[in-house]
């Protein structure tokens, strides 16, 4: 039994890693008041960039860096549209997703080797393999935390760091103020536009990194729609986390866990039709959203940043 739990937890953490990066990224973006629905597109582009890079150069580090750069660049477009041009953020974010999805699919059929008809799918390359940590790997259950790839180890550092930065530093204070009440932040000398650009781009970079984990570690390689809608689950996880980075892990474990369990069940040849199992994470998303919303309506102090999705101009009435 312990072995089973350990193995499910191991997969859970690996499945949840990309969600953690992307969720924390989107939390930072939304905390600044910018709603970026381009997560799905940015994740796909991140995954594609990472795999294409590692396939051609063999450098894992370079592929992570480029995946983050591409995620950040797409977020920059969104920032320009929604902050400077004051476009509708929903529309702008959706177009980032549409563009990212289509463009990743297009590049996936162009950047591969000639031998494979220029397709990237089906190719293999270096990947982030699990790194065992001597002495800790063999612990019952907890050992699951110590047989992961480098990027998963990264979230152990990122989560507390992201929490500390947001709640304990002056930069985090300014960030929260910008998303809560930009008029006040502005009057207090915080540069609203600068911070919104900054955190939208940082958020995009983390989303790109989340995408990279998929194609470099969790399911190494490129397949069309490799994210399987994870970008949308991230949007729900941000709400589930109540915009608090430390809670991102709970959502990631929940959804990673459902994934892990349904894989296990499918592998063990259960009678439940696979369609239902595949549906499970998405059904869970809807249920969790409903529950969170109900809870929120009873507890008004917890909720989205007050200015989320609105543009700000100083002399606006």
């Amino acid at each position, binding site marked *: 039994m312990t072995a089973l739990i350990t193995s499910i937890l191991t997969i859970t953490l690996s499945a949840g890693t990309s969600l953690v990066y992307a969720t924390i990224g989107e939390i930072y973006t939304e905390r600044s008041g910018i709603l970026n629905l381009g997560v799905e597109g940015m994740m796909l582009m991140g995954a594609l960039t990472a795999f294409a890079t590692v396939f051609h150069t063999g450098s894992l580090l370079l592929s992570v860096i480029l995946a983050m750069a591409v995620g950040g660049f797409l977020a920059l477009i969104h920032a320009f549209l929604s902050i400077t041009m004051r476009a509708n953020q929903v529309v702008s974010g959706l177009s980032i997703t549409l563009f990212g999805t289509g463009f990743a699919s297009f590049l996936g059929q162009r950047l591969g080797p000639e031998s494979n008809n220029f397709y990237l799918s089906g190719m293999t390359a270096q990947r982030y393999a699990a790194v065992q940590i001597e002495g800790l790997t063999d612990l019952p259950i907890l050992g699951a935390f110590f047989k992961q790839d480098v990027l998963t180890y990264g979230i152990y550092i990122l989560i507390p760091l992201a929490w500390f930065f947001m709640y*304990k*530093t*002056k*930069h985090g*204070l*300014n960030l*929260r*103020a910008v998303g*809560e*009440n930009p*008029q*006040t*932040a*502005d*009057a*207090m*000398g*915080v540069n609203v536009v600068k911070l919104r650009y900054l955190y939208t781009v940082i958020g995009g970079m983390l989303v790109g990194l989340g995408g990279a984990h998929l194609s470099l570690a969790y399911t190494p390689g490129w397949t069309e729609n490799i994210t399987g809608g994870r970008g949308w689950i991230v949007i729900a996880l941000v709400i589930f986390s109540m915009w608090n980075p430390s809670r991102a892990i709970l959502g990631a474990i929940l959804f990673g866990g459902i994934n892990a369990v349904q894989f296990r069940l499918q592998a063990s040849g259960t009678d439940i039709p696979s369609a239902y199992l595949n549906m499970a994470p998405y059904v869970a998303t809807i249920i969790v959203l409903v529950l969170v919303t109900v809870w929120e309506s009873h507890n008004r*102090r917890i909720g989205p940043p*007050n200015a989320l999705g609105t543009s700000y101009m*100083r*002399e606006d*009435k």
Partner: protein
Amino acid sequence: METEKKPILEMRGITKRFPGVVANDGVDLELFPGEVLALLGENGAGKSSLMNVLAGLYRPDEGEIYIRGERVNIDSPRDAMALGIGMVHQNFMLVETMTVAENIILGLRDIKTVPDMGGIIKKIRQISEHYKLKVDPKAYIWQLSVGEQQRVEILKQIYRGAEILILDEPTAVLTPQESEELNHILQQMTSEGKSAIFITHKMEEVIDFSDWVRVLHQGKLVTVKKTAETNPQELARLMVGREVLFRIEKKPAQPKEPVLVLEQVQANNEKGMPVLKGVDLQVRRGEIVGVAGVAGNGQTELTEVITGLHPVSGGRVLVDGKEMTNRSPLSIIKAGVSHIPSDRIAMGVVGDMSVANNLVMKGYRKEPITHSGLMNLRKIAEFAQRMVELFRISTPSTATRVKFLSGGNIQKTILAREIDSCGGVLVAAYPSRGLDVGATEAVRNEMVAQRDRDNGVLLVSEDLEELLTVADRIVVMFEGQIMGEVQSEDANVELIGLMMAGVPKERAEKQYYGSDHATDV
């Protein structure tokens, strides 16, 4: 006192334009150290925009600013702060979900990356003791009363080293006692060499608080006076540009049949707590019934159950004898009920729509505004023009978006629409809140005019003075119940005050007239 004092702040020829509106037209201003300057003017006279220019929130189109004799450019709030200018805005600049201390250090650069909250809180406590600005630095803003929030704002500006404190209508949200405290704080600050600019439209405050007064009218500077050398009547005349009535002309009421009847009405708030606990109320044609009470005792819900905006959980609401309990707002409007909502920006108008469209927002279904399902734009424009003239709405045109008008003119727009469509009952919630003398006078006169046209008026107000002058009788609400009713001619303010504090009328009378209060209390 000293004749050769140099001004700490000078503004010369400040002009600020907004689309279609000139908010400031070549305004000059001087402020001397250790003094309080009152900036007096009606709503829309340009007081706030002038101060927003000084605070770095608006960029002037023309004009120069000098601080301690040196020409300065104030491009952002940060620049203003660096020059020692701190502004307490009318809508507080506080982040509700953060603590007092967090709000105070928000945006500061010269603090450590991980702020030393212990040290910061200690410094806040010192300032707060020195100026008797009592507030808990660890409390969240949303937990604080409006008066406390204002203290946080002042504390914040002092903490950030403000030498020139701008206060935008600071007393609008304060009780008389809190205003008195504010006056003390200002005096202590000026005695230490700081200066303050005080925006207001209340004459008494100018007299109480300031050393100098500058009067703005329609964006222009009208006059500069030493406060000691002027009086409220003169200031009112300068501010409005004509003589002002401080009392309104009113004939005795001639009430007829009841037009609005509430029977044991009950209602709950969104958390399920009762907010109206069996209210009985009658408004007859040809009378104004005032509702007095401290805000938050169910007055807003009272107006909303009548207008169909809040569900009734028990009892009945009758309009003209017809059952209107929990009917839709539209059917209640059709039954002849007009509503001047308490939150005029959120519920009274659509800010992004034109004055004309806001004016026909209730009448658009009727001929000739709409003909065969199509709106007649020419008729709408004519109608709007007539209303603008009739109600003296000051707007560049009927096509101007409502959000660019001043509070008083927004209220006049709502008033025009509601009165035009009124068919028996007018429910007015805080209709003159935040309005200047001229607009208040217009609003009050209109209430009386409606009464004289045999409509029933329900007037909810926090301003006892207003209730006593406008209403014919006054009911007092406390915690969702009516404590008692008085006729406004022989009304006794202290008696009403006791009822507002929750003492039922009978006991209040005993307590006040004292015949047997020893046994009763």
